[in-house]
């Protein structure tokens, strides 16, 4: 039962996180491309409850911009006006699900104050907003690539396992080729084949298909194993005896037994592909500016000066860790569950 509970928890967290990412426009206080050239590399904005005179505010507030010409020391911060944090504020317009336009953001502060929860980058763009919008690119890429891999896996593994013979031989030998290579080299080799100067959306789609194409071998192997044992089960043999066609047997009796493996594989592959996207983009081979993928957020860390002076640029990288923990927990629970539940 404990695996069941673990699965429910991790699935709930993943669903909540996906919602935040899906409605990034609402949860992010700024647009991902909105620049503020006056505040490059601003540290995360401190949120205060108590002002300099020691008075407690019910509503948390941030301090407004200082006159950059004076750059007052901390003691003079008292003279800077507080801007209270407000909920459901109007701001830059964004689209919900690509259709409805809205201007309401979950939180924000009045101009000219800024709220940078995770600091800002070289162009004064809000890292927090970029992280949320970036999740749309990175998670979507991971999800689609995982589904693509698993789909090819079903096709290849199902055919190999069900029909066997020379088809099985060819498909599994081909799969070995993909399993034998270090996957990052393979990913690079395939990326090298793609044109470098094409539109960002094309890069995104190509990246997904490249990643999805590479990873088919492992799910195919697992599915082949399940199909091999499934097709010999008594009820399948009985259905065959009643004259069921191959297509019917596969659809109704054999493939449903692979669903548990499929789901586990998808949960395992998504973080792997998200990481692949992050790595490729980090190295300058993925989606580029102004698209804010997670890899693009990290790529500024390649400059030593950024890495040594602005620690908050490292925050997006750290945020990936808890996300991956949840993904792995979900995959782990799924694996344990379908091990204990007889198929």
């Amino acid at each position, binding site marked *: 039962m404990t695996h069941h509970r673990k699965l429910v928890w991790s699935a709930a967290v993943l669903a909540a996180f996906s919602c935040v990412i899906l409605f990034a426009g609402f949860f992010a206080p700024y647009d991902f491309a909105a620049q503020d050239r006056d505040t490059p590399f601003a540290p995360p904005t401190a949120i205060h409850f108590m002002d300099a005179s020691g008075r407690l505010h019910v509503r948390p507030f941030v301090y407004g911009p200082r006159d950059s010409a004076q750059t007052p020391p901390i003691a003079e911060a008292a003279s800077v006006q507080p801007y209270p944090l407000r909920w459901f504020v109007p701001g830059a317009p964004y689209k919900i699900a690509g259709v409805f336009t809205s201007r309401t953001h979950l939180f924000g502060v009045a101009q000219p104050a800024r709220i940078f929860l995770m600091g800002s980058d070289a162009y004064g763009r809000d890292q927090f907003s970029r992280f949320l919008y970036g999740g749309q690119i990175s998670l979507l890429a991971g999800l689609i690539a995982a589904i693509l891999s698993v789909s090819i896996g079903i096709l290849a593994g199902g055919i190999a396992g069900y029909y066997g013979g020379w088809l099985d031989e060819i498909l599994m030998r081909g799969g*070995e*080729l993909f399993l*034998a*290579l*270090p*996957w*990052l*080299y*393979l990913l*690079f*080799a*395939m*990326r*090298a*084949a*793609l*044109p*470098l100067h094409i539109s960002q959306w094309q890069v995104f789609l190509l990246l997904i298909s490249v990643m999805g194409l590479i990873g088919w071998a492992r799910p195919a192997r697992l599915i082949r194993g399940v199909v091999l044992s499934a097709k010999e089960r008594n009820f399948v043999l009985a259905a065959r005896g009643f004259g069921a066609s191959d297509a019917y047997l596969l659809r109704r009796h054999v493939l449903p037994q692979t669903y548990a493996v499929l789901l586990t594989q998808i949960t395992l592959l998504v973080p792997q592909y998200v*990481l692949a996207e*992050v*790595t490729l983009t*980090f*190295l*300058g*081979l993925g989606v580029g500016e102004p698209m804010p993928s997670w890899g693009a957020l*990290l790529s500024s*860390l*390649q400059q*030593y000066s950024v*890495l*040594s002076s602005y620690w908050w640029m*490292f925050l997006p*990288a*750290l945020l*990936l*860790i808890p996300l*991956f*923990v949840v993904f*792995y927990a979900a995959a782990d629970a799924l694996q344990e569950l379908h091990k204990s539940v007889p198929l």
Partner: protein
Amino acid sequence: MRYLAQRLLHSILLLLGVSIFSFAILQLAPGDFFTPLSVNPQISAHTVATLRSQYGLDKPFPIRYEHWLHSVFRGDLGVSFAYGTPVAPLLAVRARNTLLLTGLSLFLAWMLAIPFGIWTAARRGKWSDRAGGIVTSSLLTIPDLVLFLALLLVAVRTGWFPTGGMMSPGFDDLSIGGKVQDLATHLFLPCLGLVLATLPPLVRHVRSAMIEVLEAPFVRAARAHGIPERRILLRYALPVAANPLITLFGYSIAGMLSASLLVEVVLSWPGVGPLLVDAILAKDVYVVVGAVMLSSVFLVAGNLVADALLFATDPRIRTEQIN
């Protein structure tokens, strides 16, 4: 011997398959190294065409592949467009550096994983086993890239370690001891990154392989005979558990090579990784193919070593062919 010959033949076929595959996908690419030149109004279309035919880029795929195979047997692996030299010497230096880094890391990772895995298996269920499990699973969830960036951050912030390269500027003037020390300080961070990235799964596998053996009846019999626990672990259980671990050794090379690619770029180790990334950006086809082939050769060689070890340690494989 037939077993090993079979494995060797299998590896050669695999390498051929990889070369055709990587060649074919590079062939699919629109544009080549000279495409940027043809956009340049200063360079006539004729010059570009001459350059293309000079490098054989105007030939159809099978002929280019055949040329490339010839170059493999000549030992130069084709020509790098960007450097204007044969690929082989270019790769050789990088391969040496990558081999130094990955070889050392692989050795260290296994030397740490085996005792640690045995220890946690022997103490299964105790708090030290649980603590070890927490450490390995948390290391497992840290993405490689984040780990390497954190190491770079350490190097940049503390200044204790060099932030890249393989040797300091005046390396040639140092004494032997000084050279070793200089190399070691440069090696430390990339090596640490690789070991940390590959260690957790290894420890887990060693642990689970040992636990499986420790539950076997013959171990209980050995305990009943009053044989000391240490002797049971090392002399009775470990050789039996070694079998799946040797297979894992082959696979761990693949993981090591992929991680090494990234660590080399992030921590500027002059290995195959940075060369490959530059070659991809420049569409320097033969360098890309060469680097991919090189990694496959490392991998296949590692798997062959694993096969030979299995042959040496597992009597079942040797008797199989007699029957």
